[in-house]
Structure formats: C-alpha cells, structure tokens
C-alpha cells in the first residue's frame, strides 16, 4: 500500500514495542501522516484542502456537540433555545457562530478540493474510488447542511424545509405521500424538526466513516500531483512528515485567520437576516434563497419553466440531482490519458472559458430572484453544464494532442532526472 522505499516504523522503546504488538496504532499514524508515507515532492497548495476539510469536519463535530448540549429540538422553543445559546450560554455566541460559519467554510474548502480534482483530473484511474467516495461525502454534506439549517426554526429554516422536501413531491404518483412521510405531517412541524435534528447529529459521523474509506482508498495509489505523472522513483517523493505536516500546518494557519475574521467581525455576513424571524407557517419571506453553497444547484432547479413530456417541476428536480450524480461517471467521461490540465491545451480552454464561467453564472442566478434575465441565464448555463460533461469533455479528451509531459516529477521540479534514485535512500536526489 505504499512505495517500497517508505521508511519503516521502528518502535523507540519497550513500551511502544509492546503497543505495536497489541494494537499498532502508532504504526498506522506513522504510515498515514508520518515519515512512513512518501508523497510526491511537487504538491502545490491545492493539495492542502483535503486536510483542511478534515479539520472542518472535526471542528463542526466539536462545536455541534456543544450546541446540542443547549439546543432544544421542539418547534415551540427551538428558536428561543438558539437565542438562549447566543445570549445566556457562556461562549454560546462563539460556538454558534463558529458552527454556522464553519459550515460555510467547510463548503469553501470542499469546493476548492473538488476544483483541484476537476482541473488535475485526480478522478482518473487508479483514483476512481477516491473520487466516488468523495461524491458520496459531498451528497452527505449537502443533506447535513440542509438539515442543520432547519434547526434554528427561523423563517428561512421553515421555508427551506418546506421547499426542499417539496422537491420530492415532484415524483409522479408517490411524490405527495413521500413528502408527507418525510415531514411526518403536512407541513414542517415538531415531527420534522425532531427527525432533522436526529439525522443532523448522525450524518457527520457517517461522513467521518466515509472519509476514512476515502483516505484508505487514497493511500493505495498515493496522491496524484500537479504534473499528473505518477511517482517513478524515490527522488519523486518526500516523507509526509515533516514536509507536508508543515505545509498543511501553514495552510491551516492561514485558513484560521480568514475563518476567525468572519466569526469575530462578520458573523452574519454569510447568513440570511430572515432567519432571525421565528418560523411562521402562514407567511413566506418575499425572496427565499438557500445558503450560498447551494446556489448553483438551486439555479439548475429553477431553470426549467415549461412542461415537456413530464412536468417542469420534475425536470428541475431531476436536473438538480443529475448535476451532481453525473460526477460519478466523470472518470469514464474524460478519456484523456493525461491527467493534469497543465498539459491539456484544449481541455484547459474549455475548462477556464466554458465550464468555470457557466458555474459562476449558475452561482449568481441561484442567489438572484426568479425573474428575467436570471431565468434565461440559468437555462443557458445549465445547458452548458451538462454539455460540458456529456459532450465537450468526452470529445475534447479523445481528440486533443497533449503537450509534452516531463519524464518524471523529479525532472519537472529540478529540470533534470539524470540521477534517478532508486531503492533505499533517505535523502532526495539533487
């Protein structure tokens, strides 16, 4: 599961030797994030976001467990209990703002992590399973974030719950009964709030389990890298510790600076003021939008306005789910033998000038009111989004001539690989 030149764990003393025989946990850590895990020497900062995502997950779990000690999942008192956290509980404001902004920052981090995968084609063989598990994690994250947003039981919480469970009512015949079943009622109320709370508590641990599989799958081929050229010899790698513990630690420091700038100085910047109005089943806010991280998908949902064989409503729901499910097929839709976008001139053009602008348009339209010109723009961008995956990517990847690849990672870094170092060697080649 690792390169042959990986350093071996040596228990330092009798006690660690005893542990190593009974439960080789220190060995596992050594081989996963220690000196025993050789990693490509040329990873750039885009490879920091996996570790940052792991940090965000842990931070959400810690702050979430704290909030759960003070929150009451009952439609009568949920809103008040959140205000109680904000005003009465010691440091409650910090816990809540850290958790709410933590969710937003988790999505920032995960989008950059996915972006890295898309540009450097990290999803390609032999890393398909890492990618597939990643998509599963992303779906779980969306469900978790949605249900968490319902808990404060403000206006956006309530209407978010109503609209999102309403997606299921688009399913022919069984749709309405499914929505009623999901809510445990005809509109969101106590039953819905309680089950959302239960699942919102559970899912992060399911995510944590899936992350373990994700990293297990990663450690079989090891990380890809910005050249996309696989590791050939020892001089292509450096041990994870200290090289990437330090690089990840530095990235974490920068992340925390930005994160706490928001927590302390702009705690409600990413939220919606309407959620500070208690839920009112009799009045919908004028302009309901999901949290910013759902905007591109929300734009796809609203892009369908006319019935065609099936209802527009159903098209919207199908397209929205399909826009993420299509990621599962990505390793097979992209047929280029070359991974990194740096060596794929045509792919690169479509990526920067087609796909990214389409995502930006979807993002903007998703947060805008459902009026023209946003509807028309989201329709165009939705069409381009699917075109990119289903037509452009397969064709471009099959026909383009990639640029010349470096012989090895060492060559890419040092402009020479005259002395490839094979086998036992503790220091990287120079």
């Amino acid at each position, binding site marked *: 599961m690792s390169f042959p030149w990986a350093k071996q764990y040596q228990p330092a003393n009798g006690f660690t030797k005893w542990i190593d025989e009974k439960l080789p946990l220190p060995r596992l850590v050594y081989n996963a994030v220690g000196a025993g895990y050789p990693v490509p020497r040329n990873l750039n900062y885009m490879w920091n976001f996996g570790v940052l995502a792991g940090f965000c997950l842990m931070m959400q779990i*810690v702050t979430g467990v*704290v909030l759960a000690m003070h929150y009451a999942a009952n439609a009568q008192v949920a809103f008040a209990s959140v205000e*109680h956290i904000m*005003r*009465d*509980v010691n440091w*409650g404001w910090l816990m809540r703002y850290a958790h709410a902004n933590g969710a937003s920052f988790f999505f920032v981090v995960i989008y950059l992590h996915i972006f890295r995968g898309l540009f450097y084609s990290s999803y390609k063989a032999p890393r398909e399973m890492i990618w597939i598990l990643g998509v599963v994690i992303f779906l779980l994250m969306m469900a978790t974030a949605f249900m968490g947003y319902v808990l404060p039981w403000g206006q956006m919480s309530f209407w978010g719950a109503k609209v999102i469970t309403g997606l299921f009512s688009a399913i022919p015949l069984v749709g309405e009964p499914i929505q009623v079943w999901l809510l445990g009622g005809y509109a969101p109320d106590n039953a819905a709030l309680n089950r959302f709370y239960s699942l919102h508590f559970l899912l992060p641990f399911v995510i944590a389990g899936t992350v373990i599989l994700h990293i297990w799958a990663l450690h079989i081929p090891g990380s890809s890298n910005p050249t996309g050229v696989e590791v050939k010899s020892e001089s292509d790698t450096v041990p994870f510790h200290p090289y990437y513990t330090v690089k990840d630690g530095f990235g974490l420091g920068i992340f925390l600076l930005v994160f706490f700038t928001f927590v302390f100085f702009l705690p409600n910047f990413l939220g919606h003021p309407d959620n500070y109005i208690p839920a009112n089943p009799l009045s919908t806010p004028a302009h309901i939008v999901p949290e910013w991280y759902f905007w591109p998908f929300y734009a796809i949902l609203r892009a369908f306005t006319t019935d065609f064989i099936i209802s527009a409503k159903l098209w919207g729901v199908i397209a929205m789910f399909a826009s993420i499910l299509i990621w599962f097929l990505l390793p097979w839709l992209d047929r280029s033998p070359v991974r990194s976008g740096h060596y794929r001139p045509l792919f690169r053009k479509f990526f920067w000038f087609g796909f990214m602008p389409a995502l930006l348009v979807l993002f903007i339209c998703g947060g805008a009111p459902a009026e023209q010109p946003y509807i028309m723009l989201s329709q165009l961008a939705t069409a381009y989004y699917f075109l990119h995956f289903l037509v452009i990517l397969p064709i471009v990847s099959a026909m383009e001539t990639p640029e010349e690849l470096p012989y090895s990672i060492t060559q890419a870094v040092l402009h020479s690989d005259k002395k490839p170092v094979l086998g036992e060697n503790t220091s990287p080649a120079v």
Partner: protein
Amino acid sequence: MAEMAEPAAEIPVKPVDATGSAAGDDGVRRRDFLNIAAVSAAGVGGIAVLYPLISQMAPSADVLAESTTEVDTSAIEPGQAIKAVFRKQPLFVRRLTPAEVQEAQAVPLGSLRDPATLEDMTKPGHLDMLVTMGVCTHLGCVPLGAGEGENRGEFGGYFCPCHGSHYDTAARIRKGPAPTNLVVPEYEFTTDTTIVVG
C-alpha cells in the same frame, strides 16, 4: 541537534542536515527556532480553545439570574415551616417554638457530630428563624419535617427517609449516615420579615 552544535575543530565545515539547512555560528538553526515558535504558538492556541469549550458547560446567564430567592416570613407561625425554592432546590424556612429553641440550646456541643450552636445556625436577633437547605447532606434526598404532619424524626427536626438521618430542631445531624448538619445558605434579612437567599 546538540552534537551538531559542537565546534568542529578539525573539520572546518558547517554541519548540514539532510534538508540542507546549516546551523549559524551560535549553533542555533533558523529552522529549529521557527519550529519551536510555531509548535508553541499552536500549543498555546490549542489550550486557549479549551477554555470556552469547558466554560460553556458552567451555569448560563439565565441560570445565574435565578440564583437569589426572596422569602416573606411574616405568615409563618411558630412550629410551622415552609418550603421555598432556591437554585432549583428546596429551601426550608422554619419558625421555632420557644420549646424548640430551648431544646436546641440544651444539647451539649461535645455530643454533636458537626458541632454548631443554634446561634451559629441562625442570624443574630432571629434565633427562631431557621433557614436551611432541604437537602440531606448524606446523598441529597429531601428530608421530611417541613410539611404539615410529616415525620420529624427522633429529635423533632427533620428526618430523611432515604437512609434514615435524623436532624434536631436546629437542623443538626444527630443520628444516621449524614456527615454534616443541613446546610445554611447565605442569606440576609432585608426587612424584619423578608429574607433574601443567595
């Protein structure tokens, strides 16, 4: 690192480690300094984070706001007791009869498990107002004796039915497993007939 810092008399070359960083003339590597500084800062930060995480479990502002209780004692007849609530726990307020006061004062201190006079248990000038927590000092049950017709135990004060602790008319432990007298909370008379507890 210490070996590296040794002045190398014969070999006039600065020691260089695998990653190529050399020690300065004073033997301190820039990298070691940065490493220690970064790890210390992270350590201090990590410990600082623990503070709010622990503090959040302490009583919140709304709980602390309810931490004083006012009791009107004017309607309590001699020999009668009332139960009030102080910090979500029962508070016994009892007006002793002259006979109960005498009984309490007659007990020799040396015979008590937790020696205290009636004067210690009450406020000056209010020898007959016995204010105690209604929480047995054994394991926290509510003793009987404050309610009308309840068993007051062998010493005429309070009796805890859980494990059989008997308190006398000054709420002192006389028999049974409880280690100390019933607790007298902090309180003061704001008027002759009003006490504020806490």
